[in-house]
């Protein structure tokens, strides 16, 4: 099979600090130092990663090596700072490698942004031509496709209106419409799809899918694991400027999630958990909390089985109590609450761990909890103890997406995957 993209030992090094952006004064300083014979002042490394920092240089990418065959659709994922953008910039010829080599066979279109070069004063039509030529089309090709582009963007009437009068949605649609008509052999796409409304995003995904299915070579860089899973079969995971995985997407996504979650796994320390509520009598006190049954990557399994262990110490004798738990989304919106059956407390001065189980069919995302202990008798008015912002966990897109025929979960659909909506069977 012939290859489309071949990358050999690709590395990119940046200089740390402001030395790059210098001014005349800076230049004069450096020249003066060189004349006096003193070295340059050392700049404190920005990163603590010793592998990436080398004196005053920083390796954004190091020894990347892979080959993409013709017609393959490859996803590239990695945390912020993993080197995705640098790789994208190298492939797009915006910046040049420090070492190594890239060879691409065929017409390349790289899309790092929607509507590059749009000028607000120019009309939609003028901007289509400008943007199209910037992306590598000729004026003749654009003229030929103008009707299709305008149709796709749905801006018909406003074609001769300056773009500054457009809504932001229209501008983005027009930009994407131009990009969608590029017809390259190799397509390199950034997370340009992360803009616009849901309908537009789905349209972009749809377009990407048809490009991918038409035998084009596609490199797709994204944070969005769900779209990576729907669009690609092979995934490359970058971490700290290096390639840590290259293989089937499902496996790659798992590796990425694992990379990402390391900080959150393990027993949650509650030593510094916040107690914002006042009037806690502390007759019962939580001394330890844990989330069990995670799938090894800090994520909740697909069935949403939630196992929390609460260790409670009794500081005085008290009656039966309830454990109340509220789940919050990342932006601290309360999603829902649940309460345990009445539990009998440990003896005074003793501790006991309660294992509690619940099922939350939560949508993909990051969550955390608030946990309270209330006395049964007071019907929730007397609080023994209450902790905020504990038990962070993630419901990963991977664990959900398999049984989601809709492709990806959209934030606009809420936090819950409701049950039901089944067809009734008539006899």
């Amino acid at each position, binding site marked *: 099979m*012939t290859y489309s993209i071949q990358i050999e030992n690709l590395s990119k090094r940046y200089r740390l600090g402001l030395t790059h952006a210098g001014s005349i004064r800076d230049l004069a300083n450096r020249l003066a130092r060189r004349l006096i014979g003193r070295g340059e002042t050392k700049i404190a490394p920005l990163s603590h990663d010793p592998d990436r920092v080398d004196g005053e240089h920083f390796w954004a990418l190091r020894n990347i090596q892979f080959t993409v065959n013709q017609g393959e659709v490859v996803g590239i994922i990695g945390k912020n700072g993993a080197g995705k953008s640098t790789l994208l910039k190298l492939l797009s*010829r915006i910046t040049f490698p420090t070492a190594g080599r890239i060879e*691409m066979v065929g017409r390349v279109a790289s899309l790092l942004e929607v509507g*590059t070069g749009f000028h607000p004063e*120019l009309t939609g039509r003028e901007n289509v031509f*400008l943007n199209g030529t*910037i992306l590598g089309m000729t*004026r*003749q090709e654009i003229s030929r496709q103008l009707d299709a582009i305008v149709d796709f963007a749905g801006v018909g009437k406003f074609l001769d209106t300056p773009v500054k009068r457009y809504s932001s949605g229209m501008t983005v649609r027009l930009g994407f419409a131009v990009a969608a008509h590029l017809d390259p052999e190799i397509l390199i796409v950034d997370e340009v799809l992360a803009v616009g409304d849901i309908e537009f995003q789905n349209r972009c995904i749809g377009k990407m899918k048809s490009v991918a299915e038409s035998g084009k070579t596609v490199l797709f860089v994204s944070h969005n694991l769900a779209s990576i899973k729907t669009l690609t079969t092979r995934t490359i995971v970058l971490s700290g400027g290096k390639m840590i995985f290259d293989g089937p997407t499902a496996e790659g996504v798992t590796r990425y999630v694992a990379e990402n979650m390391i900080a959150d796994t393990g027993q949650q320390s509650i030593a510094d958990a916040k107690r914002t509520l006042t009037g806690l009598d502390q007759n019962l006190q939580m001394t330890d909390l844990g989330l069990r049954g995670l799938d090894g990557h800090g994520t909740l399994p697909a069935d949403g089985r939630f196992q929390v262990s609460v260790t409670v110490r009794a500081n005085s004798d008290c009656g039966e109590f309830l454990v109340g738990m509220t789940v919050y989304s990342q932006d601290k919106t309360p999603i829902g609450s649940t309460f345990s059956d009445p539990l009998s407390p440990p003896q005074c001065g003793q501790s006991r761990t309660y294992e509690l189980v619940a099922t939350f069919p939560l949508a993909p995302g990051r969550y955390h909890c608030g946990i309270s202990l209330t006395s049964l008798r007071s019907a929730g008015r007397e609080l023994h103890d209450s902790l905020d912002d504990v038990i962070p966990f993630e419901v990963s897109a991977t664990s959900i997406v398999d049984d989601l025929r809709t492709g990806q979960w959209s934030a606009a659909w809420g936090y819950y995957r409701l049950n039901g909506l089944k067809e009734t069977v008539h006899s």
Partner: protein
Amino acid sequence: MDRVNANPLLKPNCQGDTANSPLTLETINQMSPTAKQSTIIEPPRGWLKLNLGEIWRYRDLLYLLARRDISTRFRQSVIGYGWAILRPLLTAAIFTLVFSVFVKVETEVPYPIFAFAGLMPWLYFANSLTDVTSSIVGGGPLLTKVYFPRLVLPLAKIGVGLVELALQFLVLFGLLIYYSYAPGWQILLVPVFVLVTVVTALAFGIWLTALNVKYRDVGMAVPFLIQIWMYLCPIVYPITMVPEQFRTIYAINPMVGVIEGFRWALLGTQHPNWTMVGVSLAVMSVILITGVAYFRKVETSFADII
């Protein structure tokens, strides 16, 4: 709009010689049966070839960027392109008042025409130099998002001034008629001097725009530079006022030869001292060649610095 162009990306670069070419990036015609275009990206090394072929393939972009500037230059202004006429006309009027009425400067031709004919190339040069200098930093949003030969950005900036210059010619002909002044055969050489003016602005502009990426001080210095530069050019005074023995040194300023030649071609005044024009052209050529070489050397790092 309907000119037939081959796609810039599809058209193979026919400047073979890939084995030992010092190119950073080359688009070569692969000799495989598929004959597909192949793009090779490697670290930049050494001094780079000019690669005008690539710029030619991006001529559509060059054209549209220039047109963007031309059509947005005076949008939302009432007078619009009237400004292109008004500025030199008012400047020439003030110069006439000061240097012809207050200070009696002797010129071969009526002073307003003398000043206007000198101002035309100068204003073109000054405006284009400013535009070209800011072209790379101003093109940052484009540079960091998409590849194209970086020289397209400064090159696209020389078009706006040409439109203004064309309008100024109409005014000049009006003035010539008013003063009943008939130009000679030399007027046929005007396009040559327009070209020289454009190239001079580019020569300095390419140096300055490349330097401006790293040293923003350049952007600050250019307006001031232009201000004092004007007095080093024979615009408000004829070159005959410059002492004979200094004229060759004076001509190191390439705009001296340009303005002298321009005025001679337009007005048929005393033909310029060809030694001086030669010195000016030589200096301009050196600046152009070194400027393009420097630009080519640093252009690979533009996106990293901006």
